[in-house]
């Protein structure tokens, strides 16, 4: 080996050690795989199912006898992470084999699988919540959030229903996915057919078809939607059998800008000046590229505050933008929730005009930015949920010290220097407040667990002292999150607002960039 080859060998041997959690993750996944394959093997054996049904009836009888009220209608088959069973307002950890009755709610920390009394299987994605309720002619699964895939057994004497806040699905014998988000719900069929009721509108979905209740919800290929499932490969195989060429998506046409101009900008451009900052203006307000939507709290806050609204014509998006920030704006997430890409194109000067500038909303402009990314940057991504060290925002012992207000959220620019005391003030939903704490104060994700549903007048001043405050937003280490969330910020919140931050593992959704390239010519 000559000197060059020796250097080469040294360079290749200077590689990082695997992360400490990697082996545990692999072993846990293997254990899950084993349990799922055991489950798959058990399913076709009808006499075992019959025996299970007999056993279930026996258990139901005992439960009715002993408890008088809550009949067992399902059992937790697999808990791939902490799974909670909420009965009568009390929450406890559930383990494989735990019985679930009508009125009970199941919350999955990791994935989980329920087996209903009729043999149907309900797979919960991590961080999903489903409640079992009685229907007049069967059972109802109320999906409060997250996603489930239901493999429904043939219904003999009744019906199985799945309901979210805005859609109801009735089932005969089929495999389908239901996803409930804040923006709306999504139903997709893998095998068989389901009847979907949305308000007074009713439609039948067949394999490969999806329906979303909100036109602004992103639609992904069905294979992508079910990729989180431990049984994804068998679902995909079913889908290929049932709907070989189907990609039916029953959603309105996507929104697009009428005119788009993209011009490359030298990297030496004055990217950081407010007047060149990328911003979009809809009839309901402006959003900027440096931060999340509602946070005019960036390092450019004071400059932004002096910009006249006319600097952004109505119904347009203009300015210099890094593609990572464009992605964050298009999908309404914090920039630190967008994964790094090794192929980010350069910064571009964008000028885009909506086809309906006088009526377009911010949400619609975001949808148009998504189309722009797909069409011009050939952008593709998927979403991943990771459990990371963060904080939960909860109500402190003596209750909140602020009042509910009316109208929309309004957040004032931060009036102080990034390193001094930081004041958050405005009308916030608690989720927005938690997000802003995450981005500007704690530097670790903060999840709202106050359970407060409204919009509130909040003002809190946090003195970081030597810690520094603004411009954070990295995933942050556990130690940093721990110290900041447990002391400085939490103390200020407790004293001034009656809220508290507790350290916890929290679910965080990341946008993972699968592909992006230099934008096509105008």
């Amino acid at each position, binding site marked *: 080996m000559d000197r*060059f*080859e020796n*250097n*080469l*060998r*040294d*360079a*290749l*041997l*200077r*590689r*990082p*050690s*695997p*992360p400490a959690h*990697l*082996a545990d*993750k*692999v*072993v846990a*996944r*293997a254990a899950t*795989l*084993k349990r799922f394959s055991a489950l798959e093997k058990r399913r076709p054996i009808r006499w075992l199912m019959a025996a299970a049904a007999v056993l279930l009836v026996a258990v139901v009888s005992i439960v009715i006898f002993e408890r008088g009220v809550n009949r067992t209608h399902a059992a937790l088959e697999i808990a791939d992470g902490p799974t909670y069973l909420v009965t009568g307002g009390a929450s406890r950890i559930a383990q494989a084999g735990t019985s679930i009755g009508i009125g009970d709610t199941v919350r999955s920390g990791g994935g989980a699988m329920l087996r209903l009394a009729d043999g149907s299987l309900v797979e919960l994605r991590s961080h999903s919540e489903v409640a079992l309720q009685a229907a007049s002619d069967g059972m109802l699964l109320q999906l409060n959030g997250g996603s489930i895939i239901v493999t429904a057994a043939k219904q003999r004497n009744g019906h199985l229903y799945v309901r979210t806040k805005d859609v109801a699905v009735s089932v005969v014998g089929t495999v389908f996915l239901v996803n409930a988000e804040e923006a709306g719900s999504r139903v997709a069929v893998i095998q068989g057919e389901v009847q979907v009721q949305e308000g007074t509108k009713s439609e039948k979905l067949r394999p490969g078809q999806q329906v979303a209740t909100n036109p602004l919800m992103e639609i992904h290929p069905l294979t992508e939607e079910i990729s989180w499932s431990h049984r994804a490969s068998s679902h995909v195989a079913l889908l290929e059998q049932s709907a070989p060429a189907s990609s039916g998506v029953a959603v309105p046409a996507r929104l697009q800008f009428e005119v788009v101009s993209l011009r490359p900008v030298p*990297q030496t451009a004055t*990217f*950081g000046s407010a007047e060149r900052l990328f911003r979009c203006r809809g009839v309901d307000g402006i959003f900027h590229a*440096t931060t999340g939507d509602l946070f005019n709290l960036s390092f450019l806050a004071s400059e932004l505050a002096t910009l006249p609204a006319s600097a952004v014509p109505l119904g347009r998006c203009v300015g210099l933008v*890094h593609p*990572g*920030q464009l992605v964050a704006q298009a999908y309404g997430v914090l*920039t630190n929730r967008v*994964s*790094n*890409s*090794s*192929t*980010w194109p350069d*910064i571009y000067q964008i000028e885009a005009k909506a086809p309906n500038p006088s009526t377009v909303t911010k949400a619609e402009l975001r949808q148009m930015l998504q189309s722009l990314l797909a069409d011009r940057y050939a952008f593709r991504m998927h979403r991943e949920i990771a459990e990371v060290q963060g904080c939960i925002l909860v109500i402190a012992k003596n209750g909140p010290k602020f009042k509910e207000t009316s109208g929309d959220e309004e957040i004032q620019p931060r009036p102080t220097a990034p390193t001094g005391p930081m004041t958050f003030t405005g009308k916030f939903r608690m989720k927005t407040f938690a997000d802003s704490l995450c981005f500007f104060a704690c530097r670790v994700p903060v999840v709202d667990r106050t359970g407060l549903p409204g919009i509130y007048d909040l003002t809190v001043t946090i003195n970081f002292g030597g810690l520094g405050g603004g411009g954070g937003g990295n995933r942050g280490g556990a130690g940093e999150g721990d110290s900041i969330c447990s002391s400085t910020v939490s103390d200020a919140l407790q004293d001034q607002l009656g809220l508290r931050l507790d350290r916890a593992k929290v679910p965080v959704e990341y946008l993972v960039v*699968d*592909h992006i390239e230099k934008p096509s010519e105008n």
Partner: protein
Amino acid sequence: MAIKDDEFESLVREHEAMLYGIAFNFFLSTSIAEDVVQEVFLQCFENLKNIESPAHLKAWLRRAAAHRCIDVVRSGKAQKEVQMDELPDMPDTAPESDPLLTERLQRLVASLPEKQRMIVILRYAEDMDSDEIGKTLDMPASTVRTHLQRALAVLREKAPRALGEEHHGPIRK
């Protein structure tokens, strides 16, 4: 004698560094390397009954990792280059080595076509000879040698030029 299920955890702990090293050198990305390692071990778990011995296991894992890395590149799920700030802190195993040279060489290797890249990694990081690499990648040893010579020629040519270039990182806020 086949490996048993309950031996799986210890074999993961024994071989994770090797697999992670191969995948990291191939992609220069910790996240993709993690994914590859997980997939390879799960594949291994499903095939435990077919693996006869510890020696067979090591060869099996290297082979699975090599093919998995190449498949990931071909499926377009990974990119060839990685941003500066995606590189983790490197262990200080060779304090006398020039960190700039190390980083440039890693990047140059990661920019090679996938087969040449894997051959260079197996040769220099895993200390495998052409015969072993050929068996791992399903190609004749002579083809391995040809690929290796071509890869080395490219690296020798580009290394001085790369060292002379100033890095312009991406603009980040």
